[in-house]
């Protein structure tokens, strides 16, 4: 029992609620929202240290032992994600201070962001499949409101599709849980793991596992990503950055969690299938990124490629491959947020997203330009930035398992990714300068620090990969040895 585990969920909810009460005090909103993310960051660092020394931390809510109550489980994988999510949110919030506008600020932008984070953190930390569903709902409803916040035409059109498709997936999620409960008679993930192992992952269980995979694929944008490019380009930059960085990753997390803890007995079927879906997403995502001459589209399609790559490593289901996935997941959260923020700033300055209308921005905005350059290299996994270590391990993992096609597609699409983001860089920043300070549509005042922070982070994570290897390795160990998880959560109960 460790009460720290619930703090990443509770802190944002409580601060968010307080903020709703003081609706017009924007300064309070800004202060509290930053404070909340900082606190979450501190809590997660404390948790990380505890897990390192004492193993996974659990909290049985209401004191009801697993599997009867809801258990929160903080293993290294989950807490690492909580920490990075807090970092990313911190940056996006700072960015929002000078970009989101007064009206959106007054209409609960900050509390909604915190609620979203609460849902995200809850999804990472929960050890109960129904609670996972509820946390998804928290996150999704917050995202429904955020995506439509402002009520512009594009936002309404895209949020309608977004909501409809997510409703459908929530519905399927619920059905899948019902089926699983019917067979297994339990909702606790650890308990499910034990029972599935005991019963053997037969045909029907695998079929239900596939249904879960469909649900999470929809959330993660794994193959079923049709809704993603449109809806991620509709909201303002800070929101889009949080979406692009975090929301899909929750789906990815759920896939990794479920298929490493519960449904890990038939990797030849389920994991291979995940690998196929990952390959298709990488190819389609990269093609989408290459196809368009529009900043936002290129970046949103890159989200899809990233998701595919992370899961490619997981699909290999080897130590090396999963290690690569974890590294790449952490990297991807940071660099996607950075890319969205940079892309948003470009549009903010020029007033357009069309590459053909922009040119020579680097003369007036060298910092922005070079940060974009670094981000572009990082997102394509060019060393020594943060993507490369994950890239090496993901590829090595797929090769080790014999999925040469998967590793090969991963590398080839990373080339296309580079092509697509370099196209932005070369068109926007190079060439003759066609804008002067007077004709620009906005300024980068106040926007740069948050992006600079993320840029430094992607550099540090690449050069200092050694610094986090203990944590990543612990996360991988936890993922690949489900009995550690079940043993910690259930104690003697489920055995």
């Amino acid at each position, binding site marked *: 029992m460790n009460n720290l585990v619930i703090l990443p969920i509770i802190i944002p909810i409580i601060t968010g609620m307080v903020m*709703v009460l003081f609706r017009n005090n924007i300064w309070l909103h800004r202060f509290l929202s930053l404070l909340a993310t900082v606190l979450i960051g501190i809590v997660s660092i404390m948790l990380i240290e505890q897990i390192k020394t004492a193993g996974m931390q659990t909290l049985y809510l209401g004191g009801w032992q697993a599997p009867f109550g*809801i258990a929160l489980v903080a293993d290294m994988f989950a807490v690492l994600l909580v920490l990075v999510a807090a970092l990313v949110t911190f940056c996006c919030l700072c960015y929002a201070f000078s970009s989101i*506008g007064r*009206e*959106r600020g007054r*209409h609960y932008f900050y*509390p*909604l962001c915190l*609620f979203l984070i609460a849902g995200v953190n809850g999804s990472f930390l929960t050890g109960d499949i*129904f*609670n996972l569903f*509820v946390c998804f709902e*928290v996150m999704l*409803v917050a995202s429904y*409101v955020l995506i*439509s916040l*402002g*009520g*512009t035409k594009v936002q309404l059109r*895209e949020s309608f599709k977004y909501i409809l*498709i997510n409703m*459908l997936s929530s519905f*399927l999620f619920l*059905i899948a849980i*019902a089926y699983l409960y*019917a067979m297994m*008679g339990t909702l606790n993930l650890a308990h499910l793991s034990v029972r599935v192992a005991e019963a053997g992952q037969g*045909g*029907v269980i*695998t*079929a*239900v596992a596939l*249904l879960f995979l*469909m649900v999470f694929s929809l959330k993660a944008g794994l193959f*079923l990503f049709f*809704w993603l490019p*449109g809806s*991620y380009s*509709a909201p303002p930059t800070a929101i889009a950055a949080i979406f692009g960085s975090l929301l899909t990753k929750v789906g990815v997390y759920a896939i990794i969690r479920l298929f490493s803890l519960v449904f890990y007995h038939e990797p030849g079927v389920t994991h291979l299938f995940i690998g196929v879906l990952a390959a298709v997403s990488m190819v*389609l995502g990269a093609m989408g990124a*290459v*196809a368009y001459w529009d900043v936002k589209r290129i970046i949103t399609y890159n989200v899809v490629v990233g998701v595919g790559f992370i899961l490619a490593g997981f699909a290999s289901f080897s130590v090396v491959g999963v290690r690569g996935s974890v590294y790449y997941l952490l990297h991807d959260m940071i660099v996607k947020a950075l890319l969205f923020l940079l892309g948003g700033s470009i*549009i903010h300055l020029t007033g*357009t997203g069309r590459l053909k209308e922009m040119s020579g921005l680097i003369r007036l905005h060298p910092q922005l330009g070079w940060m974009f350059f670094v981000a572009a*290299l990082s997102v394509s996994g060019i*060393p*020594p930035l943060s993507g490369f270590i994950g890239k090496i*391990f993901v590829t*090595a993992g797929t*090769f*080790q398992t014999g999925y040469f096609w998967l*590793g090969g597609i991963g*590398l080839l699409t*990373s*080339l296309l990714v*580079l092509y697509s983001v370099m196209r932005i860089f*070369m068109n926007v920043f*190079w*060439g003759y300068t066609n804008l002067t300070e007077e004709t620009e549509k906005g300024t980068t005042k106040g926007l740069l620090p948050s992006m600079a922070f993320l840029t430094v982070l992607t550099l540090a994570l690449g050069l200092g990969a*050694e610094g986090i290897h203990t944590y990543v390795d612990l996360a991988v160990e936890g993922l690949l040895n489900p009995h550690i998880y079940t043993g910690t959560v259930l104690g003697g109960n489920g055995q």
Partner: protein
Amino acid sequence: MHCFYLVIAFPFIYALAVPFLYNKFNSKVHTGWFILVVPLLVFLHLLSYIPAVSSGRTIYLTLPWIPSYDINLTANIDGLSLIFSLIITGMGFLVIFYSIYYLSKQKEELQKFYIYLLLFMGSMLGLVFADNIFVLYVFWEMTSISSFLLIAYWFEREKSRSGARKSLMITIFGGLSMLSGFILLSLITDTHSIREMISKAGMIQSHSLFVPAMLLVLLGAFTKSAQFPFSIWLPDAMEAPTPVSTYLHSATMVKAGIYLVARCTTIFGGVPEWFWFVSSAGLVTLLYGSINAVRQTDLKALLAYSTVSQLGLIMSLLGLGSAALYFDVAEEGAVYAVAIFAAIFHLVNHSTFKGCLFMVVGIIDLETGTRDIKKLGGLLHWMPVSFLLALTGSLAMAGLPPFNGFLSKELFFTAVLNASKMSIFHMETWGNILAITAWVASVITFVYCLIILLKTFGGKPGDYKLKKKARKAPVAILIPPLILASLVIVIFLYPNVLAKYLLQPAWQAVLPTFAETASLQIKISAWHGLNTELLMTIGVVITGAFLYKTLRKWYVIFRYYPAALTLNNLYELLLEKMEKFSLALTRRYMTGSVRDYLVYILGFIILTVGGFFLIYGGPTFDSFRDASVNYYELGLLIGMLTSALTVLLARSRLTSVIAVGALGFLVAFFFVLFRAPDLALTQLVVETITTVLFLLCFCHLPKLKQEKTPIRVKAVNGLISAGVGLVMTILALSANGNRLFESISRFYENAYELAGAKNIVNAILVDFRGFDTMLEILVLSMAGLGVHTLIKLRLAERRGNEGTE
């Protein structure tokens, strides 16, 4: 930490200081002067390793970077890396010196130029010293990136940008394939060190992944070293300022591929695959490059193709030399190992004479404002020193005495002749073709060397109209090429000094296993008597001179070669097709219509789950647990079906809303029947409220328009919905039939004792699973906030917010 690392890191550290130096001093002193320190210092430090290395020792250092995954900055200071690093720093010094006079301190953004250059220098040094394959890959990609930035130094020019992009795409592609080759190697050998891989060469060569690994690594080497057909990026890279072309694109970066092949020779060499791939790629490139060089009119493009061709020559030598490893007894193979020596020798020579030529071309460009040989001519009268330099450079390249190119060219012929007499690897049939190709390429090389020299400097000065008046180059800018030109001659005069201290250690480093058993000793001399090699050279001169005289007559054949079939066009076409195809495909499925998206999602579920059932055995039904169906339950079901259908078919909103309400109420009845009265009550309240709300809202909406959907769409819709229903039902029945465990719900039946609640549902909601409830309350409050903002906040459209095309 060994001081060696500080020296290697020096360029990177110094790069950080460049902006400061630029801002502070550039108005008075050219920034280049400050940069000169870097290569000089590193060069001098590296010289201090010569005694150790030339006595056959290898210095092996390790600096941890990511030790947990065995990715460390291990440095392997042996003959091969030393010779490369000396070229890198030595040429670096000369090029920076040259750039001080080449790039104007007023007009150019010098700080960027020197930062990129230092980044490159550091990466290139890292590349040649790295023993860890992944560190090598890191530096490999960093050289590609810095080269990209340098090519696009004048980023306002369209051509610079496209040249930079082309080089980036091709070299990064190669880098990725090299990486995958490395990963395969590391999986085979379980090590990340090239040295250890060399000791496990036998294990690698007998592995089933040997050929893929080899091809992938070679792909990396070939792209970087501009081997056919990846050579197309090099001519376009000439958009970079001339110092860059001199440095990266003739002397150092393009030789990284050569370095890699040399390093891996012991790992892969000795098998026919490696022999044939490397030597034939080299020979084809040699021929291709030289033929294309002849047709160029831009001096830099000509030099670029000649670089391609010379790189091919070196590559082919490495391939031919690998045959030595075929023989178990080292003495037998020693004859063929000479080719490797020739490769290293020619690599050094090429750096000197080609560097000199590039610098001269840069001076010509600077002074006359053009590099077009159609416009140039008669420069001899104004630029006699430059002429002498060009003479030295081009004749060395052509392979004439008394220049160093002669010595290595002779060795090349020796190596080819040796190889053509081999009786392994099917050389009995192909040997002569090899020799003839080498000779023909040499003839063409001779022709373009004459073109460089005579078309530029020859002719009467009055015949040519030059924009800027040609004038004598400033003395200082001539110093670097003068140094190189004198090296060209000095090496010719004293080749064995160079061989003793640098070339032979490098040779031994390429063939470490070989060096242990056989003595790799060679004595270079200019005069071997009248042997075949010399005859070949004489033949080259005579035929070449004849071809140059008749150039006008046969030059026309180039015009018949269709432009559409050039590699460049194929590359452009590939990119264009890829973009077009991607756009077409993406547009095809990304329709923006929700209906299509739902079809994809649901269709995919049918295919996956249904398909799984079909492939992996059908679902198992087990009906003994199913309760019997009563007639009133059947009635309710029919009622639900009817109202669901009514929603679909209704022509007015009112009817639909009422039908939806009816459906909800009927579900509530089921709850009653299955003894869940509290759920039924909740359901009834919810249904009532939503129906009322719907009715309230809908009176503001216009009348429902009758949609005209084509039959085909309707059929698909029907099929999908029936399919999803079927799959879900089958799954539900099988799940129900597979109740494998007792439910945990029994625990809650004790609610009164556990939680003091008589109502088990309430106890679950507020106690056992109270957290869920709390979060659901949060969901509802957020939904409330959402409704509030939707009504209150309507921001005006701003273009920036639009994400669509």
